[in-house]
């Protein structure tokens, strides 16, 4: 199964990954804040991930790692 | 080596090459054009690189790049061009970039004229650019001295990681005088581990960052403490001056550059009339030779001092600071490019003597 890892404390909650993902795998957390005080991105539907890395490409903080 | 009749600008350029300078970035402006012209011919012959930049301020930033890459590098210009370089010079001072900047002073302010002048003293020694920094500033009064200074300038620039300015009035550049150019075939250039020469992760050389931005106050304070500790060492070790006929003199003249030579002629005229006058000539304008100037002027025999400049009076302030009120320090000179004659200087001393 493909694996998306959000490096939570590097994330600034900008949401560009959510916008870029073709499979609605990601979402911005509404429940907890990261160390910087942002609502970080989180993996909402891990099984839908096709490892296209669109999210990682658009992430301004290189906070996403993808494995296949 | 035999003496050779050379034009000041060209001699200075050749002296720089003999000092290991291999990079020159400059821009045309009278009265220093022969420096870039000469470099454009000679540097390629010694495996160096001459580049005419789009402006003086581009040129000083190229110097920043080349100096930061570890090379011996220089630029030259004249008064208005030096004004354009001020931000770059301040940046080189803060980023600790060794380089040599030659200013062939001309009449100012504004476009002024192209005759020799000494109107850039304050700009050179009081920090023409922004912020609290110093340049080591040397003022030659002959072409031979200017050439010897080029060697020293590059050595001192590397030693203290600082820009060094040669502040010459336009005469030095345009005159021809016999010069003995010391060649230095086995010149060994100092190691520069801090320079940008390529970084290998985990390698011996750390990553080089040539920078003058310290956004955190403590970091800027740290840099400035380092710079000013260095300036203190420079002030202690690098003061240069000349005294001429000062022992037991009645009057002491104080002047730098070509004007100092006119003063020597005035001293001879005065001597013929039984008046003993001497000269103290600052060679390093920063660090200013305060003690030497003080000791030359504050002698029992000395009644007054006279500072002579081709300006409205700039170095005279530093002379007065050095003398600290222990003797009156008169001033002779006016803004622009008028160089007083020996007779005029002698007459002024006689006037002072008549009271």
């Amino acid at each position, binding site marked *: 199964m493909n694996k998306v890892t959000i490096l939570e404390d590097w994330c600034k909650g900008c949401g560009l990954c959510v916008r870029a993902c073709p499979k609605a795998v990601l979402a911005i957390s509404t429940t907890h804040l990261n160390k910087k005080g942002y609502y970080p991105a989180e993996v909402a539907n891990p099984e839908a991930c096709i490892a296209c890395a669109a999210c990682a490409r658009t992430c301004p903080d290189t906070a996403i790692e993808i494995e296949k | 080596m035999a003496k050779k009749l050379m034009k000041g600008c060209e001699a200075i350029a050749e002296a720089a090459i003999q000092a290991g300078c291999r990079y020159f970035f400059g821009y045309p402006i009278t009265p220093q054009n022969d420096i870039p012209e000469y470099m454009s011919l000679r540097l390629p012959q010694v495996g160096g690189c001459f580049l005419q930049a789009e402006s003086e301020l581009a040129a000083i930033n190229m110097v920043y*790049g080349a100096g930061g890459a570890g090379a011996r590098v220089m630029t030259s210009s004249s008064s208005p061009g030096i004004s354009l370089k001020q931000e770059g010079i301040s940046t080189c001072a803060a980023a600790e970039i060794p380089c040599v900047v030659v200013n062939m002073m001309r009449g100012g302010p504004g476009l002024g004229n192209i005759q020799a002048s000494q109107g850039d003293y304050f700009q050179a020694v009081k920090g023409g650019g922004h912020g609290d920094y110093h340049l080591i500033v040397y003022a030659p009064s002959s072409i031979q001295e200017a050439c010897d200074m080029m060697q020293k300038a590059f050595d001192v620039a590397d030693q203290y990681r600082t820009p060094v300015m040669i502040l010459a009035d336009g005469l030095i550049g345009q005159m021809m005088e016999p010069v003995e150019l010391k060649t230095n075939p086995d010149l060994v250039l100092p190691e520069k581990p801090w320079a940008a020469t390529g970084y290998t992760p985990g390698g011996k050389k750390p990553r080089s960052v040539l920078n003058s931005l310290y956004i955190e106050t403590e970091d800027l304070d740290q840099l400035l403490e380092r710079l000013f500790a260095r300036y203190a060492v420079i002030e202690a070790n690098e003061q240069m001056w000349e005294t001429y006929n000062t022992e037991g003199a009645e009057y002491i003249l104080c002047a730098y550059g070509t004007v100092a030579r006119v003063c020597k002629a005035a001293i001879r005229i005065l001597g013929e009339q039984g008046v003993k006058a001497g000269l103290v000539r600052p060679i390093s304008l920063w660090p200013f030779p305060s003690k030497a100037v003080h000791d030359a002027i504050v002698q029992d025999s000395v009644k007054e001092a006279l500072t002579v400049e081709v300006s409205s009076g700039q170095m005279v302030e530093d002379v007065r600071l050095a003398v600290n009120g222990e003797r009156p320090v008169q001033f002779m000179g006016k803004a622009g490019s008028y160089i007083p004659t020996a007779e005029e200087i002698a007459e002024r001393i006689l006037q002072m003597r008549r009271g």
Partner: protein
Amino acid sequence: MTVVFKKTPVLRDVPLHYCPGCGHGIVHRMVSEVIEELGIQDKCAGVAPVGCAVFAYNYFEVDMYEAAHGRAPAVATGFKRVHPDHYIFTYQGDGDLASIGTAEIVHAAHRGEKITTIFINNAIYGMTGGQMAPTTLVGQKTTTSPLGRDKDHCGEPIRMAEMLATINGSAFIARCALNSTPNLIKTKAAIKKAFETQIAGKGFSMVEILSPCPTNWGKSPAEAMDWIADAMIPYYPLGTFKEV
């Protein structure tokens, strides 16, 4: 599991100071990846501008200079002339390159300086708080064009890619955008092409990159990316304008 995407060591492990959704971080990663992929990290240096990317010297794991505003191409020229067998890039914003540094970039191109310029066009001055830039669009509101840029008052925006493409010394000039996955892929390819142009010694190379500035555009990161397509690309067409 095989790694599909992971941070390159050429991008230092330092949190970026940029605003959420800012394009700088994306381009920093691309440039770092290209340097790694071309295997030139130990022979490469970079010049950071004055602007939001003023701290870029903290982010690239190569020798770095911090240049005075607009002067990066001159600094890079000095480095390249001393180390002709090394590689150097300038990383500049639109205020740095298209305003105060216009002479430097134009003459670096004219000299065919073998350097690579990464030019971030976000149509505004970011670091100083959103003033009008030479690339600000007509009608675009900024803190110094509060009623929207008026072309009769201060002209229309500069198209740097087209301008520099007319210069013989330019060997590769392209404009890209960060607003979509295909464009992100093309942007990185263009950056790689620019560095390859330098490595081949063909002359001056530059990639102009339309980049979002959510904070100063007063938009969310997603809206900013959309605005690039809606407003910027029509005025700043994408593509390769010079390729030798």
